[in-house]
């Protein structure tokens, strides 16, 4: 089971991202609808659709069937980024109406649930997760926020530049291990 964290600047540019593989096993909640997918076309464009619709991960987890479906970390990663980006629509919508910083399970797409955390400076932390873990995610977000604030205290760091600090990375990972 994996979690994907993205820190997005107000201009939608990711300044940090993290993929965390949790040791917990995901419960198989997939529908029979998504099983037994046909290999309906071999063109490259079919691969894009396969990936975007979430089919490649479905086939990956259930029965891997040859090279007919194009898959791989890169493609999946792209899809996850797309989902994270698309969820900004809902996040922006909700955050204008609600003052809460933590937006719990604000969006769902394919198999992913999206939770978000919006800082007062309009940074958006977006977490893609598969299972429900409300308290853990809340604590995780608060940890990341604190770490982010400490990074931003650096006068040489601007709001739009990517966070490359190793310390930040290590601590976020530790927090992810703890809570997710």
């Amino acid at each position, binding site marked *: 089971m994996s979690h994907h964290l993205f820190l997005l600047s107000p201009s*939608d540019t990711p300044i940090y991202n993290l993929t965390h593989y949790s040791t917990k096993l995901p419960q198989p909640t997939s529908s029979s609808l998504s099983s037994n997918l046909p290999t309906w076309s071999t063109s490259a464009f079919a691969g894009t659709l396969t990936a975007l*619709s979430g089919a490649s991960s479905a086939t990956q987890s259930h029965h891997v069937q040859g090279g007919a479906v194009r898959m791989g970390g890169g493609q999946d990663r792209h899809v996850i980024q797309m989902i994270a*980006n698309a969820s900004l629509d809902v996040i922006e919508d909700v955050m204008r109406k609600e003052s809460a910083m933590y937006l719990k399970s604000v969006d769902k797409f394919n198999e992913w649930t999206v939770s978000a955390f919006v800082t007062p400076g309009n940074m958006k932390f977006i977490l893609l997760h598969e299972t429900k873990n409300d308290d853990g995610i809340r604590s995780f977000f608060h940890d990341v926020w604190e770490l982010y604030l400490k990074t931003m205290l650096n006068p040489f760091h601007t709001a739009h530049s990517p966070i490359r600090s190793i310390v930040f990375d290590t601590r976020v990972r530790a927090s992810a291990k703890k809570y997710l």
Partner: protein
Amino acid sequence: MNSHAFAALAHIPILVFPVGPIPRAAFEKYAAEIRTFDSIRLGDIPAGMKDERARFMPNPLSSGYLYLSYPSHPPPPRHMSLSLFRPSHFTLGIIGVAACSSSYSLASALEQFENTVLDIFPEGSTFPLAKVCLAFEDEESAGSTGLGDTLPGIVSIPSVMGNKKLYIGTLLADLCSHILAELGRVYHVLESPIGNEYLNSALFPTLPSPSEMPLSLSSGNLGYPSYSSQPELESSGLAMSGIQIKRSSTAGPGISHTASLIQRQTILGPPAVRKRISAVGAVSSHGRLYKVLGDFFLLAGRTEDASLWYAEAIVLFKTGQDPVWHGSVLEGMATVFVLDAWSAGQGLQSSVSNNGIKEPWADIYDQLSQAIALYHKAPAPSEPSQDHSLLALTYCTAVMRQTSLLFCTWSTKGWGALAFASMLQPASTSYTQKTTSDNSWTNLERISIVSGVSRSQIANTVSQAHGPWLLHLGPHERLNILQSMATIYSSLGYKRKEAFILREVISCIMDLIVCGREENDLSRKSDVGSANTGNRSENGDEVSAVGKGAVGVRQNEILEGNQSILKLLVRACKVLGVDLEAVGVATATDGNSSEAGGRDSNGFAVEDLEGLADAARESFGWPELQVGVIREAIAVAEALPDPLAVARISLSALRTMHSVLASSDQYHLYQTAGRALAAMRRRGDAPAVEYWAGNPIMSLALLPLALHRLPIENPFSILTAKSSATNSLLSGIIDPFLYNPRKSSGPQSKNLIVQDEPIELTITLRNPYVFDLEIQSISLSTTGVEFESSPVSALVIPPNTLYSITIIGTAKTRGTLVFRGCIVQAPWGAPREFLLPVPTDADQNLFARRQSAVRCESGRTKYWGLDSLPWEKDGRRLSTLLPSLKNPPQFLQCVVVPEQPLLRIRWTSLTHGAVMLYNGEESTIRLTLENISALPIDFIRLSFEDSTIGPAQEALSEGELSVFETYETEYDLLHRKAFSWRNEKEITNILPNQKVVLSVTCVGKVGCAHGTVHISYSQVNRDHEEQVPVPEVFYTRQLSYPVTVTVYHMLECHDMRLMPMIDVDYDDISRRASNSAIHHLPEVDNLKEWCLFAIDVRNTYGLPFEVTFEREQAGTESAAVSSTVPPGSMSRIMLPVKKFRLSDDQISQPIPTLSDRQFVVGKSKLSIEEEQAQRELFWYREELLKIVSARWKEVIYSSLIIFVADIHWFRRTGDRHGDLSLRQQRLTLPMLKALRTDVVQIDLTLIVDNPDGSPQELDYSGGKYIASPNEMLYLRVEVANSSCSPFLKNLSHSAR
């Protein structure tokens, strides 16, 4: 959207298609008329049938409606299995539209209609239930088509008929009646025990074909009756006739089943049915049967019956294992609920008040949610078959139905009549578009608040449809679902989600295109009919039409389809912050491009300036996603194939995103664009892409002309005025102000270039990319006089560098030439002009302000999310912040002057341009000039400068010198110039190719290290330009010849003395001076009138020199004293000088200044007496220096040859001579006394009387008079007045 209308379950779909040769426009017209009937009142349905077909007929006075929908195409054959599960999915009726004319008869129309029906619907399929062909008569051929013949199955409509619409309505009602009747027949088959078994045989069962019924009945084979397994050839004739009979309106009972016991009853109670079925003794549950019954009633517009039977079915399904059918029942119930609400609220126009706890639609929503959950959890069919696909379709349709419920409620601002209307007939209400057309957040949020449905709720609902199961769907359904999702997201204002879905839409279409191309012959056949009827709704429906068009017709290049796909791409990419259209398509032809350039030149310039500011701006978006989406866009464009789009996309990406692109990506994009452009070139297309690579021109500069070619502007007045070299030389730094504001604010120094002579311009280019940037050509863009330059072509700029090129050009006529900038053309792109304004101070100020404003903004986030897209933000924020450039830009400007002659120095008498001189020596430099132009030179003037002038001028301008020193310096500047041209009048004209020799005199002057000879020349008199008003200026060129001067300082004069002769001790003198002045003394007749001039001359050099002092004095013979001064030693030279006296007038004159300097203020605070004394000294010294002059001459001893290694030097020094300056010497007051003739001369003589009585002078020897004692002496006093005026004196004497 049509297929996802909420109430689609209650719609009777009717397919309208053209028959025979009917013009498209005519068909569209008739079809539109038919389509206006979206519902038919139950009361209008003709009911006349008595058997089982009457079951679904409406009650005579019932008030409901039949709802019609007109899909553009029938469902694909794969969906046939759904025929019983979801009859509303199929085209229950068919209407053929034919245009009859004299050449096209009714019979042939009917035949074609039947054939087409057979093409579309394979035999054996349940549907369509009824069909009719409408033959519209042409206006021209009215009456001639034989409308009198009545053929079964075709209805002709004469053109003379007045109210066609009414008639069509009647015909439709008739058709519906047939459909309802056939529904009754179908149900009749199903309710039989065998039918029920069939119904329960599979997940999605089909109706057994009539011909098969008895067979299967007898054999008990309850297998899955697939139409494809049917032996077509054998049964075709029979089936056809059977079907035809069954469907035709005039046919009698064609099926052998007896009439059902169950008559058409209004109150058809479930108990009766149950009883009947139990009597038949079927084993399967009747849940599905009831559900079908409910569906049919729903279609028939009888909602009470439908809900009754649905309720029955639910009861049976509660326990059963049939989730799919269960879900379907729930969907049906939801539809019934809405239909009831619609019929209840129609016409009232009042919203149902939602004052309850739950929203009114919550129940329906829950029902649908339940249905969706049931579909979702449905067990997978065991064998991989069509069922997967159909199940997924059912699921997605259910989700879309649920979404539609919310969306319709939302978009119509609440649960009310409008919502019902849009749910029932989405096409008929354009209200949705109207409300959501304003896509601003406030408007959308307002709708949400009014309607009570939040946008995120809708989005979450619709996102359920998205999942891996989309792959199960057929291409058309998938497109349909995705497109509907995209439309909803778009209406909700969720642009990123829309972009996500649009990417899938594009992939779908592209997949179809790619695959369709491989098998285009096969797939084209199935597309008949849809090509003509492809209708487009307003938003996004183009997708499906595009898909079909691209699959079906690939031979003729319909660009519309490709353009639509690209439009989708651009839309999707824009959301991600990639502007695929950053590089424009060049539309202008050569003719008007220049006009366009001239018109909005200011705009360009501003844009260029802004482009510079862009660097400071932060980027927007998710770089990884952007790169991915660009790659995909290129793949799409390549697959279309559209090379122009490929080039545009890759170049746009390079232009806008090169800062985030990895180098390999940049390289790849560049290669791709190059390939695409090459492909276009092969196909012979015109270059179509604008110049893309940012602003490549960093600067444009005119290389200064070589000094000898540079023309210098002079006013004509200097020709007429007498040359006043004095002024220019002495004035030096004349500007009395440290800071002169008028100097800098004057007109910018003009760049002068010469007509017909090549000039060079450097252009600095920039390549910000990681690859070699290729530029096809660069040429200069000029205005003003004609300028001829060859463009630089095939240029390759290395990566990440600045690169300079030089362009050589020639101005053809005189006038003003303006360099606006450069026209750059990338390979196979359109040329683009880049302006290079020369910024004025104000501009630079403005630019700096803009930059700082942008930089100040960069860290802040006033706008976020999609509002912060670069092109959105700038329009709003920066435009208000940034000052705009008001003034028209200034460009690099040149003045082209007429052709000028050109002179060169062909030969000089100097080797290496160096001259070595002794101090005071004079030498001649000969310069041979050659006129190498075709123009004569009639004006030549020389000027000189040397290294002594500067310091002297500086000292003068500082004004710290005393009057005397000032005079000396000025004298030095004027009369002892290092260089001079003695014979100025010697050369006036140099004809073309003529050579002349100039002689320049060079005088050795201590402190002079180098000098320059400037030769200014011009052609002043030009005959051929007489008509032109005499210009005020003319231009000269200057040829400079630098000379290195070495001056040896060898003789120094010291210690000038002037002594009265009388006191001289001649013995002493003869001892000190080797060549004394003694032998000159004889001429000194009267010692009192003479004085002795003495000076020490020291030789500091290594060679002996002979020094000659000459005296040129009026009233005396000239005399000279020579002395050889050996190296290192000093000689004293003595020369008698006759005393003189200057008149008072002369000495009272002030010390003159040689220049016309105005601000000479006497700095000295001398008293009048002192000043008088100074003037006297000055004038006497001047006079003395006129009288005495000194020269030196080199003395050659034979022994010296040993020392002097330089033979050359030695040879030339044979007669080296020069002047020795005495101007260093000062005259002091005692010297003045010695020099000046006394006013009164008194001569005392002692006289003694001779014995003879005559007076005799006393003996005088050794300076003493020797007088004998006691002798009477006479003192003779002779007084001489040497002044010009008489005067009186007292004489008194005393003796001691």
